[in-house]
């Protein structure tokens, strides 16, 4: 069978842009978190709990984690496209990554809103 080269999926810009935007979101969150921890460092479990039981902090942390997972999806998919050349294996691994990241997203909601 002749090996035919197929490219031309006509996407890519959105993922590339999303990776940059999520990176900015993560940097902003980390700087804010560092600022909060520098100004009033929590000393015990109750202190840490107080920081994260604020509703805005929960939302910000959730946004950070979603950005992290989205960023990780683009990055890991890039690695798989670079190095895993068998389409079947690549698709299986990509599904595995998506399912793991969806699981982490639900899990992070549970953790953040249980505090």
């Amino acid at each position, binding site marked *: 069978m002749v090996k035919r*080269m197929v*490219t031309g999926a*006509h*996407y890519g*810009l959105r*993922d*590339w842009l999303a990776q940059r935007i999520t990176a900015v979101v993560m940097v902003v969150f980390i700087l804010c978190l560092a600022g909060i921890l520098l100004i009033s460092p929590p000393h015990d479990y109750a202190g840490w709990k107080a920081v994260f039981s604020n509703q805005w902090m929960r939302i910000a942390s959730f946004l950070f984690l979603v950005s992290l997972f989205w960023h990780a999806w683009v990055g890991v998919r*890039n690695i798989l*496209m*670079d190095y895993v050349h068998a389409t079947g294996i690549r698709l299986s691994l990509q599904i595995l990554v998506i399912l793991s990241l969806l699981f982490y997203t639900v899990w992070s909601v549970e953790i953040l809103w249980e505090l």
Partner: protein
Amino acid sequence: MNFSIYRFDPDKDERPYMQNYDIMLEPADRMLLDALVRIKTVDDSLSLRRSCREGVCGSDAMNINGRNGLACITPVAGLKEPVTLRPLPGLPVIRDLIVDMTQFFKQYHSIKPYLINNDPPPETERLQSPEERAELDGLYECILCACCSTACPSFWWNPDKFVGPAGLLQAYRFLADSRDQATAERLDYLEDPYRLFRCHSIMNCVDVCPKGLNPTSAIESIKDMMIKRTV
């Protein structure tokens, strides 16, 4: 001067090997290509491509002490001994320092490296303002020596799908040309996770380009154009 040179003749050798040469250079042998021509007077079985011997044709691109470059414009004076010479990485070796550039040129041709303009040709040239012409500076000078693309890991892993820095620099050269009318089609072609977005901006291409060009910046400009038309 000591050299260690990659040798492989598919008709005779089972596997490639490195051959050492200890050569007395003449005072006029200032560039690496002069030294290689000197080595050929001792061992004429050593195969390499060269033509203009002044960094214009791009034939004698090779891996010099681990870094891609043109032998003809690399002074021997600064080279660490033994000077290790290998063919450009990532392309099939035809013999010794000669590689098969088919894949490289296939990618170059894929971006339609010519002006597309459907207006009837004017009596004289299609004129550009000095500003429009200046847009092409840093793009048109590429000599297609393949130093950049063969230094790019993304091109090593997907040479059949990723256009590579040389091809993408040329793609932007025509996107930036005020006389070209195929901007939308060109961007449509490049909007692809493999053709363009295998570039992770590690800038190996910029590091090795013997003409001092910046394919990474051209690739960023293509992405800028895509953002402008999408967002």
